[in-house]
Structure formats: structure tokens, C-alpha cells
């Protein structure tokens, strides 16, 4: 973390990390220049030269595209014109999908409508355009504590009279699975990490939520940071770790503030540090701000970043449970997973199980965006139907009919409106050929161009490919180029079958990004035979 922290500090202080900075850093740290160049050029937070005083980062991904139109970025550029003091960069989803279209103005989250941009340019950009903390604070059912004084109650109880094995058994009984999308059984992961050989172990919270349409972790971090910290503490106590890191995407500035306050508070009240609550258990926790990129949410890429390398996913096995940070056993869970643990410990696994619909166990935070009347985050019983979630959000915007929905994030295939009664559940959605993923539900109304929507998802993966392995680096680029050529009328036939290219990427890519990069498009071609926007592509398939 040392090098990246030093580079982030330079970027923050000077607005750039210049060659001269890196030459000094290389000398001070005793590392070769090429290594620093590898880092600076990989992470989007760094720039080689300072930018102009007004820097606009405009989201180009699917939800903002639905909200503001396919040509939104061009219109913003046109509005800015040739002003030398303003820079517009198109960036991947910034996790403000409930406020779409969104932007970062000099790093601060804002709504990004044309009028918002104009207001900023005219110097009247007021705080009213600020988009943070937008979901009103609520009492969430996963927070067992009625008052701030009661917080960390589960940890207190465990430290006083608990056994780590009981926690693992509870997580298993609660059927908790990784809520960052991969659905790995949490109890099993904790057990594996607890039993992994090694005197030194780590706990890492993956707060790098970056998939288009996903923003529930932002809300959890802003409103329930104490549950995330307590979940990590319980994890550390169970596996025997003394050090933890929260890896947060840099765009979540308000979440960073909430986490810093919570960590400070936890140290002050004896929940963090040495001799926690009078026990012999000690745990230190720090916040690490990611220098950027969706791929860092891949857990081994995240570890590479924490080890001051380019965030390129590792070949697996070994898995982090056995060989994670610095080769040591590392417990990595998503924000929502950690935040669920205190309630499961407090109320017991039977309570957690009873929160689900009949036949299902637990609660799920969903991020709802796209063509709905009221986008936002909801905590719903496991097994709720997609239709119920849509109704919670006021139905389809403008009273239109629904065309399709993606139940779980960019990689989860769109399903037709006829499948609205599918329950939100890992297995139920898998059975119909999609996935629950992160629970990022994007709804698309009848008048939309579905090809434009799924192509935006494929472009996202292309844009965020780290480039480490051949199938993903080249396959995603070629696929997008070929489809764009067809749409531009420059190509009458696809030279290779996209399905075959997808198969190669799915079977040979190192990580999940390359494995799913073409899936949204391939699946839509199969699943929506009468969708007008897909006909042009279907006609020219090889």
C-alpha cells in the first residue's frame, strides 16, 4: 500500500503524479522507475499532468445512458465547447444510478444533467445539485441496535462468552452466501480461513462496488458503517486476524467520510485497537482508497493493488482463504455480507432465516434503477419477486410497459417482462438463465432499444478489462468493434460467430470479467428473438 498511498497523496496534493515526482519516489523508496510507471498508467486516479480547474467526469454507462440519452456525453461536450478551463472525461459507472445521469465535478458526486453541467459552467453550481446521501436514513432491519450506545453488541457478547465455531455454525445455518455476487457460502469461507495455516491473517472488506446499476453498498457504508466494521471484527476474531483493510472505491467520498468517522469512533470506544472491550483480542482497521477501476473488485486484483502492483487478477488456485494478502490467509467479503453478520449473531440464525419469504432465508439489499418511477435501495425478504421490488419503486416510469430487466448487474442477462414473478434468489434466477449477482436490478421500458442497452454493458466490460489475458483484452475489443461496424453499415457479415468468441472468452479468461464480457449480448440474441433492435445484428450473424 506504501507506493500507491504515496502516489495518491501526490495526486491529491498536486493534481498529478509527474515524471519528476516518480523519479523522486523511486529514489526514496528504492524501486525501479518502470514499476511506478506500471502503476501510474494502470489506475485512472492518476494523471501525468495537472488538469484544468474544472474537471467533469461523466458516467457513460447503461443507467445514465437510459436516463439522459445515447448522445448525452456529446451534448455535454458541446455545451462545454472549447473552454480551456473545463475538461470532460467519460468514465465508467460511478455508483450514482439512483441519481442518473450523474457526474463527478472535481471528484465530488453531482447530478449530471445538461442543466447541472450548465449551472456548474456558469458558476452557479450550487450544493442543491449534490447527490450524496440521497436515500433518506431509515431504520434498516439488518441493524439490531436501537441506539448508538448499543452498537457492537454482538461482538461484546462473543468476546464475553462466545466461541468462533458457533459463529461459523450460525452463518452456515443462516445460509448466508457472498452478497457481492459470487454467492460463495460465507460460513464455509470463514471456516476455511480459520483453519488455513498461518500465524498472520488478514480481513479485507471489498467495498469496491463498481458494476453498472449497483449502489447498495454505498448506502450501507454511508448509513450503517458500524455494521461493516463490526462484521469485520467478528470475522477477525473468528479466523484469528489482527489487521484489516476496507478497500473503497475512490468515487464514494461520502462513504469514505462515514467510514473514517466510524473507525475513529470505534477506536475511541474500545471496539478497535488492543484489548477490545477488555478482552485479549486486538484488531487494527484501516481504510484504503482505491486508485480506481472496476477490476479491483475482483478479489485477487484487489490484493494485487494492496501489494502495490497493477490490479490484475491472479491465476487461481491458490485462493485468498489460503494465500491472500502477502501470501497469507485472508478473509475477503463484500460490504453487505459483513454487514449482515452482526444481526445474525445478535438475533440468531433462525431469526435471519425467518426474514425470508417461505422457502427462502434472509434479507437482501437491492439497488433498483433504470426505467422505474423511484430508483433506490431497498432491503427485501429473500425470495421476494422481481415484481414486488418493481412495485416498491413505483412501477415502470411514466406508466409504460416493461420490456426487460436485468436482475443482478451488468453480467446478469436481461429477462423479459413475462418473468417478473421470478423470486430474487441465487438458484431461482440461475434456473431461468440469469443470476442474482449483486442484486442490481435495472429495468428497461418497452420503448427502449435493447441492443443499445446490452451493447453498453459489453462496452463497459471492454473498457474495464485490465488487459492481462489475451481472450479478454482482445476478445472484448474485437466484439465491440465488429458489432459497431455492423450498426454503422460498414460490415455486412460478422466474420466470426460471436457465440463462439464468447465461449472462448468464457472458458479461457483468467477472471470473471472476461468470462462474462459478451454474455449480455449473446444471451439477448438468444432470448429476445422478436426484439426489433437486435434484428440488424441477427441478420448479419456469420
Amino acid at each position, binding site marked *: 500500500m506504501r507506493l500507491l498511498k504515496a502516489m495518491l497523496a501526490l495526486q491529491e496534493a498536486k493534481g498529478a503524479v509527474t*515524471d519528476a515526482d516518480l523519479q523522486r519516489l523511486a529514489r526514496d523508496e528504492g524501486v525501479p522507475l518502470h514499476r511506478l510507471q506500471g502503476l501510474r498508467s*494502470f489506475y485512472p486516479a492518476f494523471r501525468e499532468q495537472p488538469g484544468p480547474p474544472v474537471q467533469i467526469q461523466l458516467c457513460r454507462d447503461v443507467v445514465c445512458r437510459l436516463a439522459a440519452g445515447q448522445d448525452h456525453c456529446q451534448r455535454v461536450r458541446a455545451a462545454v465547447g472549447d473552454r480551456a478551463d473545463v475538461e470532460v472525461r467519460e468514465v465508467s459507472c460511478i455508483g450514482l444510478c439512483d441519481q442518473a445521469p450523474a457526474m463527478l465535478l472535481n471528484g465530488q458526486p453531482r447530478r449530471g444533467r445538461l442543466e447541472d453541467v450548465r449551472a456548474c459552467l456558469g458558476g452557479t453550481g450550487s450544493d442543491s445539485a449534490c447527490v450524496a446521501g440521497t436515500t433518506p436514513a431509515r431504520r434498516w432491519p439488518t441493524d439490531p441496535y436501537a441506539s448508538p450506545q448499543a452498537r457492537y453488541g454482538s461482538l461484546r457478547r462473543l468476546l464475553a462468552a462466545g466461541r468462533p465455531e458457533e459463529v461459523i455454525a450460525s452463518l452456515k445455518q443462516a445460509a448466508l452466501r457472498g452478497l457481492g455476487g459470487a454467492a460463495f457460502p460465507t460460513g464455509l469461507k470463514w471456516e476455511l480461513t480459520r483453519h488455513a495455516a498461518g500465524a498472520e491473517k488478514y480481513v479485507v472488506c471489498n467495498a469496491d462496488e463498481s458494476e453498472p446499476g449497483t449502489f447498495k453498498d454505498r448506502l450501507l457504508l454511508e448509513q450503517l458503517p458500524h455494521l461493516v466494521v463490526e462484521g469485520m471484527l467478528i470475522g477477525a476474531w473468528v479466523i484469528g486476524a489482527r489487521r484489516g483493510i476496507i478497500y473503497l472505491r475512490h468515487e464514494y467520498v461520502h462513504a469514505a467520510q462515514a467510514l473514517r468517522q466510524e473507525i475513529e469512533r470505534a477506536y475511541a470506544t474500545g471496539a478497535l485497537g488492543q484489548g477490545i472491550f477488555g478482552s485479549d483480542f486486538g484488531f487494527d482497521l484501516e481504510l484504503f482508497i482505491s486508485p480506481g477501476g472496476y477490476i479491483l473488485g475482483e478479489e485477487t486484483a484487489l490484493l494485487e493493488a494492496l501489494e502495490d502492483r497493477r490490479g490484475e487478477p491472479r491465476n487461481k488456485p491458490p485462493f485468498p482463504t489460503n494465500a491472500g494478502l502477502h501470501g497469507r490467509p485472508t478473509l475477503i467479503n463484500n460490504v453487505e455480507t459483513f454487514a449482515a453478520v452482526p444481526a445474525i449473531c445478535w438475533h440468531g440464525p433462525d431469526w435471519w432465516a425467518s426474514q425470508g419469504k417461505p422457502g427462502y432465508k434472509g434479507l437482501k439489499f437491492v439497488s433498483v434503477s433504470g426505467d422505474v418511477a423511484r430508483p433506490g435501495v431497498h432491503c427485501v425478504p429473500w425470495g421476494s419477486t422481481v415484481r414486488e421490488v418493481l412495485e416498491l419503486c413505483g412501477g415502470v416510469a411514466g406508466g409504460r410497459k416493461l420490456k426487460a430487466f436485468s436482475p443482478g448487474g451488468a453480467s446478469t442477462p436481461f429477462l423479459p417482462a413475462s418473468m417478473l414473478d421470478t423470486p430474487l434468489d441465487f438458484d431461482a434466477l440461475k434456473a431461468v438463465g440469469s443470476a442474482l449477482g449483486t442484486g442490481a436490478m435495472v429495468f428497461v421500458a418497452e420503448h427502449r432499444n435493447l441492443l443499445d442497452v446490452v451493447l453498453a454493458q459489453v462496452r463497459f466490460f471492454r473498457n474495464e478489462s485490465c488487459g492481462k489475458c489475451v*481472450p479478454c483484452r482482445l476478445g472484448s475489443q*474485437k466484439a465491440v468493434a465488429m458489432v459497431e461496424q455492423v450498426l454503422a453499415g460498414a460490415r455486412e457479415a460478422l*466474420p466470426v460467430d460471436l457465440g463462439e468468441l464468447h465461449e472462448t472468452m468464457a472458458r479461457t479468461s*483468467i477472471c470473471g470479467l472476461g468470462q462474462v464480457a459478451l454474455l449480455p449480448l449473446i444471451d439477448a440474441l438468444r432470448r429476445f428473438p422478436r426484439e426489433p433492435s437486435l434484428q440488424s445484428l441477427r441478420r448479419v450473424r456469420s
Partner: protein
Amino acid sequence: MSGKMLTLTIDGRTVSVPPGTTIWEAARLLGIDIPVLCHEPRMEPVGVCRLCVVDVGERTLAASCVRLCEDGMNVVSQSAEIEHHRRMLTLLLLSEQPESSAREATTGDDALYALARRQGIDEIPFPDGARGHPRGRDDSSPVIAVDHQACILCDRCIRGCNELQHNHVITRSGKGYRARIAFDLDVPMGSSSCVACGECAAVCPTGALTHKALQHWRREWAGGEE
């Protein structure tokens, strides 16, 4: 090596190896030649070209150059599916290559072109990523020619420079499709801290890094006169 020997089967044949052996190495013991571009036995494997993928019965194929042998493993290194994927990967790489290989014109050992010939590829169906030579050349070094267009980002030069020779000059720079190799803080090779040891050109499998002939160098030294 410690621990007991591991026994596994590769393409139906049984082999016993010490722990820490990769599938690629075990296959070599059996005389099975798994194609690979990014690996070279003197180096730590990185598993990025994916040509060496094999089927170990998992959801995805495993890169045999990095995947360690496990006791009882059943490995398939040749099948119609695997050949199909290897062909697709070769096509992806070829679509970015210059029309002719500088390596074939010098040392004659371009591993990518050789692989393509073995696969009987005579046509590249993708949009031509090499048209106009967008990735550029770097002729600044007096002894090594750099053609970024021919680079397949196998990382062999990086490991050759940094791990084998400890000269620490080369990195991957950039990200995704725009990633490429770079020297120091991304300066031309001739202005970098390169000591012209030649390791990078020796281990490069394509025409990306090739030796310049001395007569070429002599010409430059003489101010361009013949």
C-alpha cells in the same frame, strides 16, 4: 522439493511428479507438447496467453503453465474444444500483427506465426487491428528494434529484463486493449536505462523485440553513410 510424489493422468497417461510441478512441466515429462507463447522454462509462469489451457474438469479451463499438479488429477490437454479455443486465441493475436514478422526475417523463430501455421490458419477474419500500424515502432535503441504492433503482451521481455537480468527497465503500461510494454517512465528504449543486454529480444516470441544487425548500427554510427 518436499512431500510425497503426486500421481495424475494427462491424456490418459499416468505420471508421477514432485509437489510444485506444473501441469505443463508434467506433460513435457510425458513428451506432450502443450503450446504456449507466454511461458519459457527459465521464468516464473504468468498464464496470460491462455494457449496452454487444459481441461481439469472445472467450470473454466486452467492455464497449464501456472496450474500446479494435484494428486489424482485427470487432465485433458487435447480435445476438439481446446483446439477450437486455441485457434480462436491465435486468430485474436494474429489480427493485431503486422503483415510480416520482423522475427521471421531475422532469427526466424516467430512462435506465433509458427503456431498459426501448425493450426493451418491462412485467413484472419477479424477487423484488422494492425491497419496503419497504430501501436507504432520505437527505433531509438541502436541494437534492439521495438515494434509495438507485434507485441502480444506475453510479459516475457518484462520477466527477462527484471527477473532474469535484474536490469529493471520494462513494464506493462496502460490498461486493457491499450496496454503495451514501456521502458522506465515510458520513454523511448534508446533514452531509457536499458543496457542493451539483449535478453528481451532473445526471449520475445514475436517480432516485437528483435536484434538489429551490427551493420545497421555501423551505418548509424557513420552518420547514415554506406
